[in-house]
């Protein structure tokens, strides 16, 4: 790599991590919709922790993409790991940004919910609320990502299209402030 042309962007490889918290993996499916541009992507980035690599812990990264809101203790731990390890954290999709579909439970009382599902619902005999320490406890409310950690960027959409994700990621990689513009923010 030569420094002879300071005006030219250095072609350093970047590191990317992704995760799906309280989401449906729809945003990750949308990422796959960039199709053959996946080859270009892996030319330019190493992919660390992600459902695509099945790597379980996140190392130091440049960009972290977070799909889904925060509905339980494990979500919080994963999110904090991403915030700690990623220089830029991006909330991807409606659930990460607003809580989305999982947040529909926010107007219900969690205790009553668990009681009805595991103890008093129709057809339940000798019910018990699961208490295995392996299971993460649910939070009383589902929160958008930015209410739990600082978030640097947001990509709206349910899900954002592959084109939108590609535009956003390449903007970040190329040093431009990401800007989707109207066609990529237009859903109907």
């Amino acid at each position, binding site marked *: 790599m030569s420094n002879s042309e300071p005006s030219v962007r250095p072609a350093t490889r970047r590191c990317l991590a992704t995760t799906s918290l309280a989401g449906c993996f729809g945003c990750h499916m949308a990422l796959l919709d960039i199709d053959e541009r996946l080859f270009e992507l892996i030319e330019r980035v190493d992919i660390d922790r992600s459902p695509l690599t099945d790597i379980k812990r996140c190392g130091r990264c440049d960009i972290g993409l977070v799909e889904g809101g925060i509905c339980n203790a494990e979500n919080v731990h994963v999110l904090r*790991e991403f915030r700690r390890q990623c220089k830029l954290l991006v909330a991807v999709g409606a659930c990460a940004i607003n809580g989305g579909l999982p947040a529909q439970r926010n107007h219900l009382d969690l205790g009553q919910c668990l009681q009805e599902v595991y103890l008093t619902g129709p057809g339940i005999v000798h019910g018990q*609320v699961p208490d295995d320490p392996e299971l993460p*406890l649910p939070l009383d409310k589902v929160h958008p990502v930015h209410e739990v950690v600082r978030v640097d960027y947001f990509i709206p959409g349910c899900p954002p299209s592959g084109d939108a994700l590609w535009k956003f990621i390449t903007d970040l990689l190329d040093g431009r402030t990401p800007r989707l513009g109207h066609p990529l923010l237009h859903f109907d």
Partner: protein
Amino acid sequence: MTIVDTLEDGPTCDQDRLADLLQPVLARHGSDPLRLLQILRDVQDDLGYLPPAALTSIARAVGLPRARVEGVAGFYAFLHLVPAGRYRVLFSDNIIDRMLGSEELLDRLCNRLWIEPGKVSEDGLVSVDRTSCTGMGDQGPALLVNGRPLTRMSAERIDRLAELIRAQAPLEDWPAEYFAVEDNIRRRDVLLGTRWPAGEAIGAAIARGEEALLAEMSASNLRGRGGAGFTTHVKWESARRAPCREGSRARYVVCNADEGEPGTFKDRVLLTAHPDLLFDGMTVAALAIGACRGLVYLRGEYAYLLPELRATLEARRRSGLLGEAICGRPDFTFDIDIHLGAGAYVCGEETALLESLEGKRGVPRNRPPFPVSEGYLRQPTVVNNVETLCKAAVIAIRGGDWFAGLGTRQSTGSKLLSVSGDVDRPGIYEYPFGVPVNQVLKDCGASDAQAVQVSGPSGTCLARHEFSRRIAFEDVPTAGAIMVFAGHRDMFEVARNFAHFFAHESCGFCTPCRVGTALVARCMDKIANGHGSQYEINEIFRIHRLLHAASHCGLGQTACNALFDTLHKFRPAYERRLRSLDFEPGFDLDRALAAARQMTGRDDPAAHFEPTPAGGR
């Protein structure tokens, strides 16, 4: 059984009886849809609130869709679609009232009455809530009971108030001194220091003739006193030259007496002490632009001034200063009507005010066209502030050159300042433009000022090192409010009060303002609750830029001014509240697991978050 009780029966309510009740109000206003807001106000005065059946009847009578009528009724804070209690107590919630102890008094009253703020008592007797500044900053803490202002509240007065309400004593029987509103004029200059006989300005204007009058206005270089500082004669000339719509010759003079900017009360004093000068000014403006009708838009908080103002108008009609052939000039016909607002700060914006005058929701219009070409009823209209019109009357008498000799080059004449806060002598001070802020502070007895908020929450916050700056359009412009904060005041709380004011008063029409002002208020609350971080500070700056660039009207554009200023000049007041310099959640994460812990009976380490998270750093 009262009328309202029968109306609450809903579907079974006796439509005929309701019609009998509405009839006099509708007749008084000629069932005119342009007077819808006035009709709603009057009906509410009779019934206590606006029941659904009444809205239906009113809609039918004025010939508007019911949704339009409900839309208007739902827009204004002083109109109620559900019963709000026979005694409706509203505490003025400006920071100045708070500094005088309004929150403690509100709690005290609620305790005495066994009610929660914002909720009606179970017997439907009383409700206690907050409202935006009622324009009594020099004699607070102030409140409104059923629309009437009470000043200088104290613990003793609040206790007595609770007794009077519980005894259901009519307002007329309450101690008269509770309702006393003082003028508190502390410094008089050319306007306040002179006696201006009613009609003198009109006589002088007629003697000069329209062209010469406009020339005097031009020479005076009078600029609007409502805050924006637009040159008055340009407005008048434009309205005079603007073509009327086909088949009409109507032009209008509108007086903006919707003095909603917190901390401002100089128009109240002018309306009390110099109403004839104001009406002279409106009549002079009418002569200049060829208008035959004038409208005063009086803020709902000042409704108590209405009887006196109407009496003044009546006296002027009798003495030939209003009506036909004014001052003996046969071709000069002009009359003035007063419309009341109903608790909406945004109506101080001139196009929102025009919408409200037309009986609609107070949503600002697109500009251009400006009111001078398409104003009230889309006809050429001059909208001027109370003080501007008073000054115009004075100019008609004394001439433009005399006026231009006062003040500074770009800001001619004098300015009325409403001074309140940590000062020995709050009240009205009239100075020639160009007066340094520290002169004002010295005169009003503000020995320990650390900050001065000039021109209300939408204006400028000055710190000590700026007190040598001058009140003038070319330096520190102002609509008239000077709020003084002493060294022991917390400037963060001042800014937080302003943030909530704008979130409450956003008209909801444009998204940047509706959402942005709410987000800013939420950021400020998060910081106040000890969950704040640098992130919120960055957010406030980001939203400030967005609101400034993208809001539909001045409300959103100026909504973060005070935060922006205090963040620059009083940053430690914010920083000492921050929990970290990066980010903290706005809620307790560990407590968010409590319900699940209880249901599962778990208390293992994985069922908790560490108190101070390593993450988020």
